[in-house]
């Protein structure tokens, strides 16, 4: 019986890897079933189940909150998202990140004070060096 390699990976780690006889997923335009030697195919996934059927006919379920499905004749790769994604949700997250920055830096000059930063950092580094030296002297 023909089989196909299945990998489900997310940005935070591998979720599943194995051999299957059939893979079902909810693609953007509807549910798809991928059998071995399927033609190359790529689609976005909707949040939902990815079902992996092994040779014995047992099914394993994996929930993905969206992502991409990439199919090649001998391999299926699911690039799973770790969070629900939608245009307006992303937009909201972006606004939130902006707001956080504005809140944290209220009343700040937009101009980077190069000289001040450099002198203070130089001081910190000098302190570290001095400590290093003292330690060496004590040992030596």
């Amino acid at each position, binding site marked *: 019986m023909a089989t196909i390699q299945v*990998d489900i*990976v*997310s*940005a*935070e*780690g*591998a979720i599943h890897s194995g051999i299957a006889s059939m893979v079902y997923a909810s*693609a*953007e*335009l509807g549910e798809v079933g991928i059998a071995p030697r399927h*033609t*190359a*195919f*790529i*689609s*976005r996934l909707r949040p939902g189940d990815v079902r992996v059927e092994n040779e014995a006919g047992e099914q394993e379920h994996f929930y993905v909150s969206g*992502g*991409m499905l*990439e*199919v090649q004749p001998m391999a299926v*790769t699911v*690039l799973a*998202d*770790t*969070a629900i*994604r939608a245009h307006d949700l*992303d*937009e*909201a*997250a*972006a*606004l*939130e*990140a*902006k707001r*956080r*920055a504005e809140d*944290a*830096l209220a009343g*700040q*000059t*937009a*101009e*980077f*004070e*190069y000289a*001040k*930063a*450099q002198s*203070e*950092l130089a001081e*910190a*580094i000098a302190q*570290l060096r001095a400590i290093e030296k003292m*330690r060496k002297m*004590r040992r030596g």
Partner: protein
Amino acid sequence: MAGAKEVRTKIASIKSTQKITKAMQMVAASKMRRAQERMAASKPYAQKMLEVISHLARATPEYRHSFMAVERSRKRVGYIVVSSDRGLCGGLNSNLFRRLIAEIKEQRALGVDPAFCTIGTKALGFFKRFGGSVLAQATHLGDKPHVEELIGTVRVMLDAFEEKKIDAIYIASNEFVNTMTQKPVIRQLVPLVPGERQSMPLHWDYIYEPDAHTVLDSLLTRYIESLVYQAVVENGACEQAARMVAMKSASDNAGNLISELQLVYNKARQAAITQEISEIVSGAAAV
């Protein structure tokens, strides 16, 4: 015996400090191991994605996404600065900021303005003190950062790039060389640096659903997010490694201090005893 007592309390206080630094060292060691595992776990995703993207880029040469476009002349560039949330990790953050300052100076000489996006409280504090236009920030990601906490900040930078407010995006973070060494690096994120071109022996293409552009768009955003996520995770491993080393040397120093103070204490005690004896003896002689 006032001197001896003072020394004794000092020794006790240093001993309790040493206990704390030792505990922190051990905690950092175990956290570092887990951070390294996370680092390894995030690699296959980005790698797989890169494969698909480079295939797509070759299969649909007529469509150039703006993230892959050729370099445009630079007036303003964005830096995503990845730092730790907490201190007590040696020179990790200072080294990164120093590297960044050198970079900013170089860019300034070319007439390029910097804009920033900070991850971690230390970077935020740095720009709070020294100014600089911070477009977005994320803090308190904890030991287990999640991609969704980064989506917003990355999005702000990508939007700014698409609106041509910034002409390139760099990421500044620490690279994990080994436990003892962490190297601050600044890498270019957008426009994507083209990787080595593999030859395509057979021409084949995917069936796209809904279409190649949409697929490529969402792939690219996720790819860049995953690169930022990787940098954050790697920086986390660096932070723990640096903290481990810093706390180890702090414990060693405390040990040295204690043995020195112990000598002082013994001497003081001996002096007190000697003094007492000589007082008794001279008292007896006088009688």
